[in-house]
């Protein structure tokens, strides 16, 4: 098996507000591999967005603190990286698409300037004009090709490690070079008439258009990890479908590792290869999408799937899960789902169930085996 690009190991994140502290994410582990999509699904407040933002260290610290664990990216633990080095990691290593396309673009700059800025950051790193990420325990090995010196790059054309295709490009010198490059990325995200869009301000664009530009910006840095934090949730349904189609097409085209966060089971089912189901800050079930959704082994996943409206189940009232999401400051002892669980036993109130493989003996770490954090996972299929 190849090395994971991003290896999250036992990550815990706590928010401290006043005197109280809230464990938003507890002991989460997952691995991302090139060309594979890992979905994270869960209710609002389950910690999935916190997890997504914690990976590139975007969470404001304080109030958030990373309580423990590692985020190993290309051999370096991002939890230990200094603030000064973070831009280098974010610039070309990890890209992110956010939930709120309406506010995620700077209102004061034209589309061109914002996309070109991303391209420039990546380009300058490629050319060796800007310091690349050094430090951590292992020196950061950017792109695994010999770094060009500034002098040699001035005369020699270079081949970028193409996420978009094997296009040989010269050094970008002029505004029109950047313009060509920006246009290329706007076409990549299927924007019609990119020449016009280029010179518009964000407030002159629709939500779907802005999200496409956000995607273009993230991709233009050729990240090896792309985190999509509810990229379609804030859009209306028709636009949602368009952006989702685009995302699916891009997933096949660009061979990056993708972490796809959504509360929408359907979106995850369509895009992800593997899925982690989060509840109260923990991953309670993990495995290949088809297996988790067709043969859930955690009572929470089962209930979640039952509550999801589908077009085949239009008759009768929608079913809702009993109880509510626990308050993070007063979590139940033992399994966090126990107050709402139909299978609850005294054991569940005493001990936290580990994430155990469904087929005994399968390796959970590595991220491909179906696993569930339930003592009575074999009884879950018998639930209504």
């Amino acid at each position, binding site marked *: 098996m190849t090395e994971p690009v991003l290896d999250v190991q036992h990550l815990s994140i706590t928010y401290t507000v006043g005197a109280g502290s809230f464990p938003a994410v507890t002991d989460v582990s997952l691995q991302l591999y090139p060309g594979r999509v890992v979905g994270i699904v869960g209710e609002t407040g389950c910690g999935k967005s916190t997890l997504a933002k914690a990976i590139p260290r*975007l969470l404001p610290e304080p109030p958030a603190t990373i309580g423990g664990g590692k985020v190993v990216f290309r051999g370096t633990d991002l939890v230990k990286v200094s603030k000064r080095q973070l831009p280098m990691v974010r610039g070309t290593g990890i890209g992110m698409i956010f939930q709120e396309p309406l506010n995620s673009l700077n209102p004061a700059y034209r589309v061109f300037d914002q996309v070109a800025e*991303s391209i420039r950051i990546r380009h300058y790193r490629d050319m060796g004009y800007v310091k690349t990420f050094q430090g951590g325990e292992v020196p950061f090995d950017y792109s695994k090709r010999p770094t060009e010196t500034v002098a040699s790059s001035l005369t020699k054309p270079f081949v970028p490690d193409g996420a978009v295709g094997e296009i040989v490009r010269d050094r970008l010198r002029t505004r029109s070079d950047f313009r060509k490059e920006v246009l290329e990325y706007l076409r990549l995200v299927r924007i019609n008439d990119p020449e016009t869009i280029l010179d518009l301000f964000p407030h002159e664009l629709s939500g779907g258009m802005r999200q496409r530009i956000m995607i273009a910006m993230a991709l233009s840095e050729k990240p090896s990890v792309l985190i999509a934090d509810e990229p379609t949730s804030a859009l209306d349904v028709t636009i949602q479908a368009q952006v989702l189609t685009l995302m699916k097409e891009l997933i096949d085209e660009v061979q990056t590792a993708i972490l796809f966060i959504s509360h929408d089971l359907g979106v995850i089912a369509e895009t992800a290869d593997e899925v982690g189901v989060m509840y109260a800050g923990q991953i309670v079930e993990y495995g290949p999408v088809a297996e988790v959704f067709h043969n859930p082994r955690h009572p929470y996943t089962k209930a979640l799937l039952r509550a999801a409206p589908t077009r085949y189940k239009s008759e009768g009232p929608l079913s809702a899960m009993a109880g509510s999401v626990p308050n993070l400051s007063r979590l139940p002892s033992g399994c966090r789902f126990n107050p709402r669980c139909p299978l609850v036993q005294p054991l569940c109130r005493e001990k936290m169930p580990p994430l155990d493989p469904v087929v005994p003996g399968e390796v959970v770490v590595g991220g491909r085996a179906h696993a569930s954090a339930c003592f009575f996972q074999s009884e879950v299929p018998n639930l209504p």
Partner: protein
Amino acid sequence: MGRNPSDLIVFIVKRLVQLIPVLFGVIVLTFFFTHLDLTNVCNEWYPHAGAATIHNCEASVNQPLLNQFWQYLINLLHGNWGADVYGAAVYPAIAAALPATLELVFAALFLMIVIGIPLGVIAAQYSGRWADHLVRVFYLSGWATPTYLGAVIAAVFLGPLLGLPSGGEYSTKVVPFVQYTHMSVIDAMLAGSLPYTVDALEHLILPATVLAFINMGIATRMTRASMLEVLPLDYVRSARMKGLSEFWVLYKHALRNALITTTTVLGITAGGLLSGTVVVEEVFLWPGIGQYAYTSIGGGGSVPNFAGAIAVVIIFAVAVVAANLIADILYGVLDPRVDWR
């Protein structure tokens, strides 16, 4: 979509038309306030003059006030700003004094922008920490300083301490070149004289610094407040996620949007600065419009110069309106979502 450059022209013309009633109001108010009680002023004005002069004076003073006003207005529209009691015309005096003041105000504004705004950014960046408190102490002490006190301390103590001159525009009374613009530094530069340029700059530093220090608070405070508003926004997070260093995130993405409010406030302050230079000009013997205003209303034991006083008030009114207009234009330049209306 987007804005038309002609929108801006229409906007400026509209605002200039609005200036007319403002000016008329200002002229009416100052004229009648200065001319309400003019009994027995002629002997005071011309203590050593002959009977004929006194007679002429009384003849004009005793005319109906509306007639006098009408006469003044007609003269003004013909470009005649009147004269003081000695017959010295107001217009050339103002034409020489106003640029000197503008130079002082622009220098102070420059300092407020290049020091005050970054201080606001730093205060927002480290809000609640010692850097923030330090900045607050700095601008509050400026704000709390009375102008006369700050000016005197700077002129008497700071000047000698730093070896900077604290009076006048140049070290010599007479300069060997033509003062085309009446802005000391620019005139010296136009004349191509490096020593005089340096000399003029040295003379400018203290009064401009005092003016800037006292008014800096508004720029710093507004920048800090709007930066704190902008920093948690999503697009700042996107900029950070792009891999920009904190410097570019703050100064290119956040400050650009935070400046919108600061600019508006600075525009209003700039208008106020112009009329607020009276004390600073008096202390630093700066031959600006503040000094002219001071003598025109009889300051320093001089004979009141009504025409001069009205002219100064008109200029201040125009300055305030113009500063606001420029702030409004910049507001639209900085924020593409705003239409010039």
